[in-house]
C-alpha cells in the first residue's frame, strides 16, 4: 500500500537538502556557540548563518530572531513575556476566538493571574474585522495577538490592517504565523507586527525548533532564565542540529516559494473541484483569503475520526477536527466560531498538501474519500433521517 501524506499542517517531511545539511553538521561539529575557543566558533558561525536565513524569510534583521523549541514556545514566550513585562501599564489583552490552543491556553493562564482578555468573534469565513480590534482597545490594553493563518480552516487574517491600528496606539502586536511562515509570504514590516511566531516543521524543516521575531525595544521578559544565549531572550544551550535544519529550510522556502505555492494551490483546487461529486460537503474558511495548501471540509452525517481511520486503512493520512478525536472530546472552537453546528464540526477533515504530492495522489484521495463517506453514511442514523425528509 502506498502512503499518500496529506497532513502537512501537522508536520512536513524533512527536505532532502535540509536532512543533508543537518547530517553534515552533526559530523562536523558538536561545539557550543557560546564557547570562546575555535570549536565554539565553528558552531557560532553556523548558528548565525541559520539566523540570517530565518530573518530573510520574514524580512527581519538577524538580531531580531530568537530560536526556540517550536511554535508553542514562541507563542507562550510572546504572550506571557509581554504580559509580565508590561503588567504595570495595564492588564488587558485582545485576541480572536479562533486562535490556536497555545495562544488560548497561555491567555487562560494569564486570566487566572488577573489579566483580562477580550476575544474578538470572527465571521462565517473565520475573518477578524480590524474594526472590532480597534473598538476593543482600552487604555489598559498591553498586547494584541491575532494569528496570520488558521490551522483548521486556512483563513488568512488582515494582519497588516490590524498592525496599522496597534502601531497607531503603540500597543505590541503578536502574530502567530506558525502555519503560514515558509508557506506564504510573511513580512514583519509590511504586517506591522512586533512579535511573530514561526516553526520549522511547517516548511520541510525539523520538528522541535522554531523562532520568535522580537522587534527592538519591545518590552518582553524571557520564559527561560539562565545563560546569556539569544541576547538574553532565551537561555539554554542551543539545539544546533535543529537550528541548522531550520536555517536551510528557511533558505529553500524563500527561494522556492512561488513554485511551491503554485504547486500546492493546483492540488488544492483539483481537490475542491473533485469534492462536487460528494453530496452535502461544506468547505470551511474563506474562498480566496486562505492558505494555498489547506482544504478544510465538513462532511454531513458522518464523524471525522471514523473517516480518518478508514482513509488511513487505504494509506491516506489526513487530520480530523472531530471532538471524538481530540483528547478533550470537545468540538473544535474554530468550527463552532464560524457557525458550524456540532454535527458538522464532528464531520470535519483537514487535507493539507505538500511539495511532493501529485495530482494522481489527490485524485486517489478523492476516490477513496467518496467510498469512505458512502460506507459510513450507510450506517449513520443521521443520514437515514435526512433521506426520509
Amino acid at each position: 500500500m502506498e502512503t499518500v501524506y496529506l497532513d502537512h499542517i501537522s508536520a512536513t517531511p524533512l527536505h532532502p537538502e535540509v536532512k543533508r545539511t543537518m547530517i553534515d553538521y552533526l559530523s562536523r561539529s558538536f561545539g557550543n556557540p557560546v564557547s570562546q575557543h575555535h570549536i565554539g566558533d565553528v558552531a557560532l558561525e553556523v548558528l548565525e548563518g541559520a539566523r540570517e536565513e530565518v530573518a530573510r524569510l520574514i524580512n527581519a534583521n538577524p538580531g531580531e530572531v530568537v530560536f526556540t523549541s517550536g511554535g508553542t514556545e514562541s507563542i507562550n514566550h510572546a504572550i506571557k513575556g509581554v504580559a509580565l513585562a508590561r503588567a504595570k501599564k495595564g492588564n488587558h489583552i485582545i485576541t480572536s476566538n479562533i486562535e490556536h490552543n497555545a495562544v488560548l491556553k497561555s491567555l487562560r493562564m494569564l486570566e487566572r493571574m488577573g489579566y483580562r482578555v477580550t476575544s474578538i468573534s470572527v465571521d462565517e469565513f473565520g475573518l477578524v474585522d480590524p474594526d472590532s480590534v480597534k473598538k476593543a482597545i482600552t487604555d489598559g490594553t498591553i498586547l494584541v495577538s491575532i494569528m496570520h493563518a488558521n490551522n483548521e480552516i486556512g483563513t488568512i487574517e488582515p494582519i497588516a490592517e490590524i498592525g496599522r491600528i496597534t502601531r497607531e496606539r503603540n500597543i505590541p502586536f503578536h502574530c502567530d504565523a506558525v502555519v503560514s511562515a515558509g508557506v506564504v509570504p510573511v513580512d514583519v514590516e509590511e504586517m506591522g507586527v512586533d512579535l511573530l511566531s514561526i516553526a520549522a516543521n511547517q516548511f520541510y524543516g525539523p520538528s522541535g525548533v522554531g523562532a520568535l521575531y522580537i522587534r527592538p525595544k519591545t518590552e518582553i521578559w524571557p520564559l527561560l532564565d539562565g545563560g546569556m544565549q539569544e541576547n538574553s531572550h532565551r537561555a539554554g544551550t542551543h539545539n544546533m542540529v535543529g537550528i541548522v535544519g531550520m536555517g536551510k529550510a528557511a533558505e529553500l522556502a524563500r527561494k522556492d516559494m512561488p513554485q511551491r505555492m503554485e504547486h500546492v494551490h493546483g492540488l488544492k483546487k483539483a481537490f475542491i473541484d473533485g469534492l462536487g461529486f460528494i453530496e452535502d460537503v461544506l468547505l470551511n474558511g474563506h474562498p480566496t483569503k486562505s492558505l494555498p495548501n489547506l482544504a478544510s471540509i465538513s462532511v454531513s452525517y458522518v464523524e471525522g475520526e471514523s473517516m480518518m481511520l478508514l482513509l488511513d486503512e487505504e494509506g491516506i493520512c489526513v487530520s480530523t477536527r472531530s471532538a471524538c478525536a481530540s483528547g478533550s472530546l470537545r468540538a473544535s472552537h474554530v468550527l463552532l466560531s464560524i457557525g458550524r453546528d456540532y454535527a458538522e464540526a464532528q464531520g470535519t477533515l483537514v487535507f493539507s498538501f505538500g511539495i511532493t504530492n501529485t495530482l494522481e495522489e489527490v485524485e486517489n484521495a478523492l476516490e477513496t474519500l467518496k467510498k469512505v463517506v458512502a460506507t459510513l453514511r450507510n450506517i449513520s442514523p443521521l443520514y437515514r433521517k435526512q433521506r426520509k425528509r
Partner: protein
Amino acid sequence: MYSETVMDHFKSPRNVGRIEDADGIGEVGNPVCGDMMTITLKVKDDRIEDIKFETFGCGAAIAVSSMVTEMAKGKTLEEALKITNKSVVEQLEGLPKNKLHCSNLGADALHQAIMDYYERKEGRTKPKKRQRGKVEPLEHREGRCYCPYCDVELAEEAPTCTLCGKPTEHRHA
C-alpha cells in the same frame, strides 16, 4: 491506538442496518456528545432473534455498536439485559481511556430497546421519550473544571469525563 478486535469490528461492522418492523427500538446519544446510536430488535419467545444498529460516531462507537449486537444476538432478553458496558469493552479487548464513554452508549441503546419491547408488550403504543438520567455538574475550583465522579481535570465543554466516561454537565457559576 485501538486493539485489533476494535479495528476489526470498526472496519467490518456486524449487524448494520435497521429493522423496519422492529419489536423494540433504542436510541441514545446526540451529535453534541459526538455519538448517536440506534438499535432495533426482533424478539421471538423472549429471545433476541434479530438485532441491527446504526451509528454516527468515531471508530470506538462503531465497534462498540457492532460488538454489543453480536453479544446480544440469540440471547434471551434476561441474558441480554446483563450485558454491561464493562463486558462490551472486555470483549473488544479494551478501549482507550477517553473512549470509554462510547461503550456506555452501546449497552444503553441495547437496554433501551429491550425496555421498549417490554413496554410495547404491556400495551403502550407510543414509544416513550427517553428519560435523561441525573447528570452531575462539573466541579469548579480556581477557574478549572473537574469531573464530579473521579476528580480528573477536564476541558470546559467536555460532555463526558475523559477518564471515567460518565456524562457531566457544564454550568457556569
